[in-house]
């Protein structure tokens, strides 16, 4: 039986620690490069390393594939993953919830910001058609949406949000090379704070490398990763608006 306080990788025997690693080195293929690869693996705590493949790639580069036993374990009983805490509701439940608990339609503005032109993810959440069989926010009778599309500057997004008195701002970031997504989102938060608008909106980001944790770190309210469905986002926004309204009322 697995000891959840000390979980190790598994190949074919419990706790054998077997892992696979691959990387390139700026060294010509040969026994030295292979030895360098093994030592690196050693540094990483991989034991009984087998360097099973080496590929010369020209220009003084080699590619290595290794197997070995990772000496580390993790305590799975202590893992807490930051998760969106609101409860998932269905399309019908969400609309009913907004009607009853908020009593007015919600305004939601969305955009792919900066130089990012990957609209498919945002459209999946916002457009009528939706995603994986779920309607997008546009279809919700209790939500009004503004999908600004691609390559929208943060300034313009904020302007629009103010203009329509948005409850929530949805930002999509798909390009992540050189951490550009983190830069873009950070700038958005800073701009909002500078204009004292940060608390006016529920600020939500999404994209293939966005996690709730990362979003919180940057200073947003929530983050949604791969496989997000429109009702996940709608449930979250509705409940947060209701909460806020509750707090404001007190």
């Amino acid at each position: 039986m697995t000891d959840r306080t000390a979980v190790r990788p598994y190949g074919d025997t419990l706790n054998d620690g077997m892992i696979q690693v691959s990387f390139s080195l700026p060294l010509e293929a040969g026994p030295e490069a292979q030895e360098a690869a093994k030592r690196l693996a050693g540094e990483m705590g991989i034991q009984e390393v087998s360097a099973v493949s080496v590929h010369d790639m020209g220009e003084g580069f080699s590619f290595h594939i290794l197997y070995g036993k990772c000496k580390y374990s993790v305590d799975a009983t202590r893992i807490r993953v930051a998760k969106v805490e609101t409860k998932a509701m269905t399309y019908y439940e969400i609309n009913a919830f907004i009607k009853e608990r908020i009593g007015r339609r919600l305004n939601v503005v969305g955009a792919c910001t900066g130089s990012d032109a990957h609209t498919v993810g945002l459209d999946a959440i916002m457009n009528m058609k939706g995603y994986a069989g779920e309607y997008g926010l546009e279809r919700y009778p209790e939500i009004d949406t503004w999908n600004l599309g691609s390559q929208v500057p943060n300034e313009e997004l904020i302007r629009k949000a103010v203009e329509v008195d948005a409850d929530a701002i949805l930002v999509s970031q798909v390009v992540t090379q050189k951490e550009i997504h983190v830069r873009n989102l950070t700038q958005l938060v800073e701009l909002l704070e500078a204009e004292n608008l940060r608390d006016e909106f529920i600020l939500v980001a999404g994209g293939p490398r966005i996690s709730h944790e990362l979003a919180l770190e940057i200073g947003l309210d929530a983050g949604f990763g791969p496989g997000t469905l429109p009702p996940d986002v709608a449930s979250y926004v509705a409940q947060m608006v209701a909460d806020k309204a509750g707090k404001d009322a007190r």
Partner: protein
Amino acid sequence: MNELIKIDNALLSRCRTAAGCIADKVVDSIKDKTTTSVERSVARLMGIDGVDGQGVPLPNVLVDQITKCGKLEDGVFYWIGNAMIETGKTPREIALAIGNGDFLITDFPEYTMEEISEAAESVVRDNITLLDESAEERKERQTQYPKGPSPLLYVIVATGNIYEDTVQARAAAKQGADIIAVIRSTAQSLLDYVPFGPTTEGFGGTYATQENFRIMREALDEATEETGRYIQLVNYASGLCMPEIAVMGAIERLDMMLNDAMYGILFRDINMNRTFIDQYFSRMINAYSGITINTGEDNYLTTADAVEEGHTVVASQFINEVLALRSGMPRKLIGLGHAFEINPDREDGFLMEIAQAQLVRQLFPESPVKYMPPTKYMTGNIFKGHLMDGMFNLASVMTGQSIQLLGMMTEAVHTPFIQDRALSIENARYVFNNARHLQDEIVFRPSGMIQRRADDVLKETTAMLEAIAEQGLMKAIEDGMFAAISRPVDGGKGADGVLTKGQHYRNPFMDIFKEKLGIS
């Protein structure tokens, strides 16, 4: 099955004629012989299982004693039956007593075969009933949980530990595997006994023991219920204990058995006569119990070149087939083996693979042929390996193969890890589904490379079979005609376990099998 190429029927019938001739000679030469392993399997069929105080399996205890007394020619049935009359004990009690050193079984007064047969009749019947029930249960479960579309996904587990094997096997079933083969520890095929009980330490595989069979069958029965597909179980009969393992498999409801007429000779240097006798009886057991056999022609291509020696694979398939037919196997249980082993660097190698696969498919349309993955040219480059396995899967679905032994990207590295198997199942499911009806779409050009290659292979096969028919199979093996390996007729392991049947010899199980299977 689609006929994507043309087969020259004249050549085909010449192949069958030659193969028939070859088999006749083999069967003729073994008719009046038996082996220690056949006798131990008769002991098992009489209910003898377990070990003695020193851990020696009881079938060996019994056969060794009779051998020492120089009386094995008369067969164990004779001696056990005789002892049953004399001692009133069950066969298992008799074996245990021998293990305790209580008596020499050959010391008792000897009864006539009629008396013996009568005394042992209920034991024979009860044990046959066991086999019948097991086969019956398979049928029922297969009706309740039908199998998926061909090619079926066949994967191996080989952790060395039967309990770890069940974890990997159940996971594989959930991932979509149809067939689980438990690979055997490296050293087992040369053991002249079958280990006993559950085992947790093997090298490159897990020992084949009856208890291990039972443990895995149970795990797969659960997986069957959870997945709604009947998950088949495979193990290895080949080796020095071929018929014994066949008995164990029949009792524990295995669905397939690796069982090749020549594998042991060529790849394990087991004596020819021993192997031919053992395979003859073991296949009757398989046939009686509805167990599919897997032959091992793929192995040739691990030592010989797949292009140069493509015809030896087909020739061997004809021989394996006809020998299986002689053991009463219906064609639908004869899972002939072949493999995708052409050098991946060869220009148009994929076309030649298709030619060979399609030829085999059309020559043996009723056989659940088993297609083996690339192994020889696999390297530690797991990415390229995964791709080669994908091309193999495509070749299979394009040519309508029956059973697909999935290749693993780590073939050149280690026996499969859980993720290797998961990825390879994903590979096969993707390719099979995405190209499901490709074979219905294409015809190969009549004068193209594929058709010509198939023609050439069939021609060479015919020539080879006719040459073998001329000189006899034993001589052909001596001459190294298969897998570039030569074995002397009298050499090899286990030669001393071959005996000419004595005057009292009787094997009532073989009689029953022959009758049921219509073997003359």
